[in-house]
């Protein structure tokens, strides 16, 4: 018994929480991210990796249901905690019967782009997914990993934006999440630190410049984002999306970096983002892209569902 207990204790000193955020949970999420960094813990990418679940904000009924499904499938010892309780993780060590939901993936067939009749798999992206806009779900029809059609559903909305008056920090958060989706953790962490310093009112000047240089000089990043998710001016106008979102993922990332600079120089002009319009433009953009590109496209639009009110 002794050894097992000791191993358990050793392990519990660095848990790996899986963080889920409701639409109004942005403030909580940032606090959790900073808390994890301060403790030298890492967040989990998937619920199977861990038994610790952190729920940020107040999820509405639909999102709460999705979180419950994830929670019931997590491996023990499990603990479900509030964002401010990182130091009070009390794992429940009772063994459970694994839920035996016989949920079979749905496969049917449809014509693909070359007119071949291939299998279609219906897969939802979100709402419980790391580095994903809180409260958003994209219902995808996949052939292989290519999106054949998509539908955007706002699962959780409202609560008011955390970002009002914090435009530069919001964009840095967007950059951090986009970089994580692109698989560049190191740069994403720098962006997150800059974001938190900015929110705390610390000086970021030269560090921000260095970060910006790293991102702009990265040829692999450009190679992987150029030509992905091209939004035409016509489509932008049709959906009521501001013109600065026109272009591909690389253009939008570039736009964010420029905007952060403008904001910090005090030259930014507050222009209300049309976050609902950003959601409505998503299905068209991700159709025909593969899963990895679809994630980049969503991250490059980064809609904030907290500003969307229930009645639309």
């Amino acid at each position, binding site marked *: 018994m002794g050894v097992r207990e000791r191993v358990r204790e050793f392990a519990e000193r660095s848990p790996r929480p899986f963080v889920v955020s409701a639409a109004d949970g942005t403030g909580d999420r940032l606090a959790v991210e900073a808390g994890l960094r301060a403790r030298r813990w890492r967040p989990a990418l998937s619920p199977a990796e861990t038994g610790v679940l952190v729920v940020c904000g107040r999820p509405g009924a639909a999102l709460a249901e999705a979180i419950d499904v994830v929670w019931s499938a997590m491996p023990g010892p499990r603990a479900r905690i509030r964002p401010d309780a990182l130091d009070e993780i009390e794992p429940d060590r009772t063994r459970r019967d694994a839920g035996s939901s016989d949920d079979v993936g749905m496969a049917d067939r449809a014509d693909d782009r070359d007119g071949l009749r291939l299998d279609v798999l219906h897969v939802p992206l979100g709402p419980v997914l790391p580095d994903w806009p809180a409260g958003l779900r994209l219902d995808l029809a996949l052939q292989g990993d290519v999106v054949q059609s998509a539908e955007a559903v706002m699962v959780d909305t409202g609560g008011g934006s955390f970002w009002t008056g914090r435009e530069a920090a919001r964009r840095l958060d967007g950059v951090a999440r986009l970089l994580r989706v692109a*698989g560049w953790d190191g740069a994403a962490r720098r962006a997150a630190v800059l974001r938190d310093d900015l929110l705390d009112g610390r000086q970021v000047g030269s560090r921000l410049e260095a970060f910006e240089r790293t991102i702009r000089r990265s040829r692999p990043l450009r190679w992987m984002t150029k030509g992905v998710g091209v939004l035409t001016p016509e489509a932008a106008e049709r959906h009521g999306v501001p013109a600065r979102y026109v272009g591909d993922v690389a253009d939008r990332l570039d736009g964010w970096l420029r905007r952060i600079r403008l904001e910090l120089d005090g030259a930014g002009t507050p222009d209300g983002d049309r976050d609902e319009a950003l959601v409505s433009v998503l299905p068209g953009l991700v159709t025909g892209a*593969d*899963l990895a590109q679809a994630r980049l496209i969503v991250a490059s639009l980064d809609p904030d569902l907290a500003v969307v009110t229930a009645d639309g």
Partner: protein
Amino acid sequence: MVEVLLLGALAVAAASLDAALDGGPGPFRQAARLLVMERRMTPRADRPLTRIGVVSLPVAAALAALVVPFGGHAALDSRVGVVWFNAMEVVAWGSVWLAGWGVNSAFALVGGYRFIAQGLAYELPHMFALMTAALAAHSLDLRVIGAAQGGLWFGVWMPVAFAVYLLSALAMAFWGPFGAPLGADIAGGAALELSGPDRLVFLAGRYGLLAVASAVAVPLFLGGGDGPLLPAWLWSAVKACAVLALLVWTRRWSPVLRMDRFVQAAWTVLIPAVLLQMLVVAVVVVD
């Protein structure tokens, strides 16, 4: 057998270095966490195939380690070490695909398939890079290749082959810029549903592969145990550590490369480049 244990220690060192660079908890803490965790399986998973996939990854790394020489000595006396290493590294294709396929989860399946696509992109340039070194030494025996380099290391006068080898070493261990099979965009990809001990074994196998791939670069391109003062096996170990540190470090330099773009570069740039390198080497050694 000492060589295999040494490579195991190198794998742990790689995990430690990555944790240190990452500012996260070290590998022993991670291992303890995964060991006390429940082992969970998704509904309707193909358990036997998943297990085979998970376990075969470290097994492949260990089998590959058998032919890796430190100094002039390897655990297994094989005249075809290069081909053996190549074969064991390809076992990882099966491991990742099985782990991704067996758990019956869409993102995991995508992760498994990503590694096959990656394999098709990196394997041809990789094989030509291996052949280039073997051609220059007139042997498929890693010990002979290591000893054949005299004063001038192969890495110096066949830089293209060496660079391609380093790229493919990253790709075969699906590490850093080639980490798409376990990508963050698909919530961990092929490893998405692996929990507890399964996950530990799988990730350990990946570090093992990375360590072996680094250590094989030493006899192929870095003169094997060649070096002043220190004994040959120690030189081999030092060089392997250097290559391993470089490979681990790449994770911080670059985003993940997607195969829908990289495969074109691999086939239209890397293959012709390494073929030209091979032609140059062939002309030099025949002369």
